[in-house]
Every structure is written in structure tokens, then in C-alpha cells.
């Protein structure tokens, strides 16, 4: 167990690699209750979310979710988040555990001029994620909701293991799967029921360690590593979460200026050519000088390669180009590859 944003979190249960492989080949169960929730409701809820979030929330139907940035006026990240549209004028934001206090204060400040209530509802939800190709068949045994009818990045309210909750077809692993919001008092019951239901499929619990290696294979950004309040949405190569056509929002002007000018640096994926793992914070060396930093890096249990993400000068952010990473005083060679590293087979 390790302390994480005020929670005691298991890095691993049976072992990081086997948990990772379980998610890629069967299914793994994650307790991600530490994630924070903020709800915005009221007459101006759409306008308020549109102002604080980079993506275009007006395009969300009720029952739909999307990934977005909680952006600063500079177009950088206060946090990244999933935005759920619960109702016409009711949204739920899922934010990072380590940022809850900061985000809640930020959102309160930035939505002051709107007719909206923004409430930290983190304590109302436990969040349990079943991820992997067998997630649906296992979970369906416990729910009367037709899970196949929930499309990717949509959700439904209903029962899971006799507990009323919200079932969302989302995740942070690159696999198909579901995240379920249930009352904390019922969380253990739901957790145990899913493990029981998945006994024949050998569904196992998976910890923070596997969550990190899985999301990295899928090239999902991690706040604090790959993105933060010094990296813009464009630096992070996430232009698809910018709602250019929705009107004003925090950071719009800065991002539009940056797009017109061209980004100076961009995040890339890389594979190590030399036998070494480039980890978070290691310097990227190009032409003998530091040209950026590795933001995430690991040896992936599924692809069995040392991979990572790094910021490099935009002119060098081209697949096939190489750079060095300084690893404990030595240089190791890396090649830029397209992201994501892993894409699940779609059936």
C-alpha cells in the first residue's frame, strides 16, 4: 500500500505484470474511488461547463461523456477530466484525486458569475472499474441494464449487484470496460460481487501500478506527469479536446494564438532502442543538449518493450526520428513512434 492523495492505495495485488496482462486478455478490477467528483447544476450549467472546459459540452447528449481539459487562461491544464452529462442542466466532472481541492476552488471562482451550483460530491461515490475484453460478459451477470446497448463513452443509471448506481462505458486502460459509480457504503458488496461473478474468467483485482502501465500503452495522459499547468492542450497533442467552434472559454485565445504561431514543442511517444527504461523526469538529449524531458516511461508487460512519452521540439517530433535519454549519467537511444502504443482489437 502507498499513500496517494490522502488515500492508501495498493500498487499491486498479485503482481503488476500479471494484473496488466489480465486486463489485456481477460478483465481486471480497479478500485478508483480516490478519483474526485464535482457536479454542476442549475440554469447556467451548460454555459458554466463551456467556460471552464476545453471540449464542447453542448455536443454531449444526456447519458454521454467525454474527455476534456480544465484549462487556465494560458491554455494549460488545471486538471484533465471526464465530463458526464447527467441532465439538460446537470453535469458531473471526474477529476484527479490529487487535484480535488485545487479544482473545486478553481471551479467555484470561475463559475461565480453563472447561475449554477458547483458541489464537490467526491464523498458520495465509490468508483469501481472492470476493464478488459471479458468485462461486459462478467458484469452483465450482475445487472439488468443491457450493457451492450451502452456505447463507448456513454453511461446509464441502473442496478449492479442489487445496488443502484451509474454504469459508464469508460476507462483508463485502453480496453473495453465499465466504471461504476455506487454509494461508498455499498462499494465492498459490489467489488466482491464482481470478483465472484468473474471467478471462472479469472478476473483479478488490479492496482495503481498496472493502471499506470496500461494507460501508458494506450497513451492516455497522466496529470502531473504528461500534462500540468505548464503544458498547453496543443503541446500535449490533444487538439481533439478543444471545442474551437463553441465560443469563448478559458484558454481559448491563448490556444488560438499558439495554433496560429505553431507549437514549439510537442509530446511524442518513443520506444527505447537500447536496453534501458526512460522514466519520468529523465532529460531528452538532442545534439548534445537537453531538449526536453521524459514525462512517463516504463517497460510494458504486454508489448514487452520499454516505451514512454516525452516533450521534444516540434521540428523533431516526427515518428522515426531518434533522440537520446540521459539515464543515470549515460545516454540511451530512443526512436519516436506513433501514439498510441497499443490499440485494442475492435470486434
Amino acid at each position, binding site marked *: 500500500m502507498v499513500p496517494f492523495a490522502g488515500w492508501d492505495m495498493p*500498487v*499491486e495485488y498479485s*503482481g*503488476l*505484470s500479471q494484473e496488466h496482462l489480465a486486463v489485456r486478455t481477460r478483465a481486471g478490477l480497479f478500485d478508483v474511488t480516490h478519483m474526485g467528483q464535482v457536479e454542476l447544476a442549475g440554469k447556467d450549467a451548460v454555459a458554466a461547463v463551456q467556460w471552464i472546459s476545453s471540449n464542447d459540452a453542448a455536443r454531449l447528449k444526456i447519458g454521454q461523456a467525454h474527455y476534456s481539459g480544465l484549462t487556465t487562461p494560458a491554455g494549460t491544464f488545471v486538471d484533465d477530466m471526464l465530463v458526464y452529462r447527467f441532465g439538460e442542466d446537470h453535469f458531473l466532472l471526474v477529476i484527479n484525486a490529487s487535484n480535488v481541492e485545487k479544482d473545486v476552488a478553481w471551479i467555484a471562482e470561475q463559475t461565480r458569475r453563472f447561475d449554477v451550483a458547483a458541489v464537490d460530491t467526491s464523498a458520495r461515490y465509490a468508483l469501481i472499474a472492470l476493464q478488459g475484453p471479458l468485462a461486459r460478459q462478467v458484469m452483465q451477470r450482475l445487472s439488468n441494464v443491457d450493457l451492450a446497448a451502452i456505447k463507448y463513452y456513454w453511461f446509464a443509471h441502473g442496478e449492479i449487484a442489487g445496488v443502484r448506481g451509474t454504469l459508464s462505458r469508460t476507462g483508463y486502460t485502453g480496453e473495453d470496460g465499465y466504471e461504476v459509480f455506487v454509494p461508498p457504503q455499498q462499494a465492498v458488496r459490489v467489488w466482491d460481487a464482481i470478483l465472484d461473478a468473474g471467478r471462472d474468467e479469472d478476473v483479478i483485482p488490479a492496482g495503481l*501500478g498496472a493502471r499506470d*502501465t496500461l494507460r501508458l500503452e494506450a497513451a492516455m495522459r497522466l496529470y502531473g506527469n504528461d500534462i500540468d499547468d505548464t503544458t498547453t492542450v496543443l503541446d500535449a497533442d490533444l487538439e481533439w479536446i478543444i471545442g474551437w467552434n463553441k465560443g469563448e472559454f478559458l484558454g481559448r485565445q491563448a490556444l488560438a494564438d499558439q495554433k496560429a504561431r505553431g507549437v514549439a514543442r510537442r509530446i511524442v511517444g518513443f520506444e527505447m532502442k537500447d*536496453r*534501458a*527504461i526512460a*522514466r519520468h523526469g529523465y532529460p531528452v538529449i538532442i545534439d548534445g543538449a537537453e531538449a526536453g524531458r521524459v514525462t512517463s516511461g*516504463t*517497460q*510494458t*508487460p504486454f508489448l514487452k518493450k*520499454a516505451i514512454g512519452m516525452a516533450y521534444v521540439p516540434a521540428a523533431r517530433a516526427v515518428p522515426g526520428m531518434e533522440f537520446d535519454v540521459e539515464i*543515470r549519467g549515460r545516454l540511451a537511444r530512443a526512436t519516436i513512434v506513433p501514439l498510441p502504443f497499443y490499440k485494442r482489437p475492435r470486434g
Partner: protein
Amino acid sequence: MYPADCQYTKDHEWIKVTGDAGQVGITDYAQKQLGDVVYLDLPQVGRTLKVGESFGTVESVKAVSELYSPVAGVVKAVNSALAEKPERVNSDPHASWMIEVTLASPGDLDALMSAEQYSDLVK
């Protein structure tokens, strides 16, 4: 569990002494803490080591850790076959020697733990 013919450090290395030299590896407890070992970075033959000096690194998916020499001496041999198959550190840690050190002063061994003492430490 922990071989009685080895001696142990609090940093979870073992040393198995034969004559004037000892083979060094990491314990079963250490490999379990590390998880899947993917790289080993070992020194050159001939390097002089002090007690507790780092002689290389062992890297798992989770983390990179320093390897510390239990004794002072000179690196006599390096197990380069193990560096090619680092997963053996997980499957058979007490047979996976990493370096062999010619002891500069056998008295260094007196400061190390027996198998029994080490078992108590990690229990």
C-alpha cells in the same frame, strides 16, 4: 527458505563465500518487492568496491534500485548470462549471482546476517 550457506545484508543482498571470493545476488524478499525484473546493469571486472558501495542497478517494471556490495574487494567475475535473462532473478533469486568479489578483508563478513537473522528481519 534462505540458504544457510549465504550471509545477508539489510539491503537484501546475499553473499556466498567460497575461498577468498564471494558471489553476490539479491534475496527472494528483494525480488518480490521489485516485481518483474527487466534489466540488470552490472560493473566491469576489475572494479574496486567498498562496503556498501553501489555496484550496479536492478530495474523492474515498477522501479530501479541500486545494488550494494556486502563486502570490500575487487570484482572478479560478472554474470553476463544473467544480464541477458534478468527474469531469472525472479524465478531463482538465490541461484542468480550477479558479481563475484575477491574479498579485501574477510572481517567484513562479520557484520552480515545469518540466514536465520535475515529471515527474522523480513518476516
